[in-house]
C-alpha cells in the first residue's frame, strides 16, 4: 500500500497535473500495489502539489506558507514528492533555489534527462531534484512522460515497475516530435 497526499486537487490541476496520480496508480496496480489517499503530508509516501491559477494561489497562500517547513523536510530527506508550476515557484525560495524574472517561455524542453512543457517567467531550473523529491516547471503528466524517473520513483516506493513497451514507444514518439530528440 502506498499512501499519497495531494493538495486541493480540485484547484491544483491547471494542466492535468493530477494525472500524475493516475499514472502512479495504474503502474503501481500493474505491479500489485495500491494507492491510498492520506491527509498526512509529512508521513505520506508520495506528495503532489499541482499547478494552480493566480486566484487559487492567493486564496491558499497562507496555507501553502504554513506547509513549507514540511516540504523542506521532505526535500532534505529526498522523500517522494512532485511540486509543479506555480507551487514550485512559490516554494523555490524555501528550498534555497534562487530565481530571476525572464521573458515568458512557453515551450517543450528536454534537459538533464527530463522532458515536458513549461510556461514560465522565472528562470528556475527546469527540474530541482533531491532523491525522489522533484520540483519542476514542467506541467501536466510529468511522470507519464519521464519513464526513467517514474521507475526510480516506484522503486523508491517499494514497487518493481514494468512499464508497457507500447507506452514507452508512445513516449519516445512524443519526445521525437516535440523536440526532435
Amino acid at each position, binding site marked *: 500500500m502506498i499512501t499519497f497526499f495531494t493538495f486541493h486537487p480540485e484547484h491544483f490541476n491547471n*494542466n492535468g497535473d493530477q494525472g500524475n496520480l*493516475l499514472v502512479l496508480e495504474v503502474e503501481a496496480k500493474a505491479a500489485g500495489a495500491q494507492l491510498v489517499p492520506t491527509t498526512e503530508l509529512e508521513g505520506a509516501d508520495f506528495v503532489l502539489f499541482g499547478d494552480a491559477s493566480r486566484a487559487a494561489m492567493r486564496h491558499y497562500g497562507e496555507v501553502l506558507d504554513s506547509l513549507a517547513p514540511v516540504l523542506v523536510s521532505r526535500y532534505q530527506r529526498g522523500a517522494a514528492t512532485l511540486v509543479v508550476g506555480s507551487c514550485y515557484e512559490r516554494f523555490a525560495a524555501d528550498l534555497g533555489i534562487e530565481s530571476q524574472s525572464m521573458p515568458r517561455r512557453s515551450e517543450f524542453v528536454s534537459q538533464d534527462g527530463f522532458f515536458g512543457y513549461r*510556461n514560465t517567467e522565472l528562470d528556475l531550473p527546469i527540474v530541482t531534484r533531491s532523491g525522489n523529491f522533484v520540483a519542476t516547471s514542467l506541467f501536466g*503528466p510529468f511522470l507519464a512522460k519521464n519513464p526513467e524517473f517514474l521507475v526510480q520513483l516506484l522503486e523508491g516506493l517499494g514497487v518493481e515497475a514494468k512499464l508497457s513497451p507500447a507506452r514507452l514507444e508512445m513516449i519516445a514518439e512524443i519526445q521525437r*516530435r516535440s523536440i526532435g530528440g
Partner: protein
Amino acid sequence: MLDVLAVALGRLLRFLLRIVRPGGGSALPGVLVSKLAPGLLARSIGNLPQGLVVVSGSAGKSSTTQALVRILQLHGLRVFSNPSTANIKQGYFSSILTQGDWRGRLRYDIAVLEVDEGHGAMLVEDLKPRLAVLTNVLSDQLDRFVDPELVIEKLAKIAAPAGQVIFNADDPNLRSLGIQEGLSASLESTTGSEPRPKYALRFDSPAVEPSCAQIVGGEGYSVQLREHTISSSATSAPHAINDALALLAADQLVELDFKAVQSVLQDSKRVFARNEITEIQNRRVNLRLVQNPTSFQLNLDEISGDEQPLMLMAGSDIHDPSWLWTVDFSKLKRVDIVGGSNAFDLALRLSYDGVEIGLVEPSPTDAADKFLELAGDSPTILFSADAMRRVRRHLGLAK
C-alpha cells in the same frame, strides 16, 4: 486604389490556392490583404449603416454569433459575419474577400463578428463596436493565456470601446468587470440534475444589477425576456446562456418578432461542425469539434462510447497537450484510430484511462483515409480545429 489592388491580389491568390488544394481553405489571402491594405477592414466595417457587434469569451462564441446572425437575418437585416474558425484578423480580411465587392466594400446592414479573446482588444481599437457580447471565462488554453485573470483583462479591453456590453452574469469573472449599464443574462436554474456551468475559478462572487434575461431549466431550457418566454433546443445550460445572450443582443438591434426568434432558438442543428452529421463516401459520419477540456468532455458525455468506428484527433492547434489529462476518457472502451500531430500524446492519455487503441496515425489525411476503410454503422470523429480543417480539406468538405 490600394484597396482595389489588395482585393484583386487576394482573390487571385485564393483562386490559385484553390487550384493547388481543391476544396481547401487558407489564411494566406487574408494575410496578404491585411499587409497590403491594413485599413481596409476598418473602412469596410465602418461603412455599414448599423455598425458592428463583436462576440467574445472563452467558449460559446460560435453558438452565440450564429444565433444572433440568424435572428437578425430573419428580421430582414443583411449580416456580414465570419466563419467560426476564422476569428482573428486575417480571418476577417478573408471574409471581406469572399463577401465584399471588388473594392472590398460590404453590401450589408450590420457586421456580427466572432472575436478571439486574445486578438480582440487590438481589433476593437480600430473598429469601435456598438455592442460587445461576452460569453464566459474558462480555464482554457493556458499555454497561450497563462491565467484566466489575463483573459478577464483582455475581455475588459474588448468591452471598453463598445457602446454597450451584454454579458453572462452567471459567470462571476464577467461580473467582476464591473460593467456599468451593461445588460446581462442570468441562469436561474438548470434542467434535472445538470450541474451549473463551471467557469474559471475565483473565490469571490461580485454582485451586478438584476439581469434583463433569465434562463430557466425544467423539461428543457427557456429564456425569459420581459413578458416573453422563448423555449430553446439547447441541451445544456451553457448553450442556453448563449441563446439568451444572442436574444438580448438582437433585442438592442431590432424590434423583435418573437415567432422568428422562437424558430431560431428551437432549431437543433445550429452550429457548424460542433455536432454535425455529414455524408462521406455514402456513409453518415458524425463530426464533433473539440477545442478545449470543456468541449471535449461535453462531446464525450454526449456520445455512447460504443460508436464504430471511432476516431479521436488532436491536431497542431493543441500546443501543450497536457490539458488532455483533465478530460475523463474512461467511458470509452476502444478508439479505432487516434490521429493528428498530437496523436501520441492523446494515445498515451487514453492508455492510462484503460482505452484500447486500434491505430495511432499522426497524419490527419492518412488517419481519415484509414478511418473510412473501417466497418461500422456509427462512424464518429472527435477532432480539434486543426485536425478538422485538414480532414475536411482532404475530404473536400471545406466550407
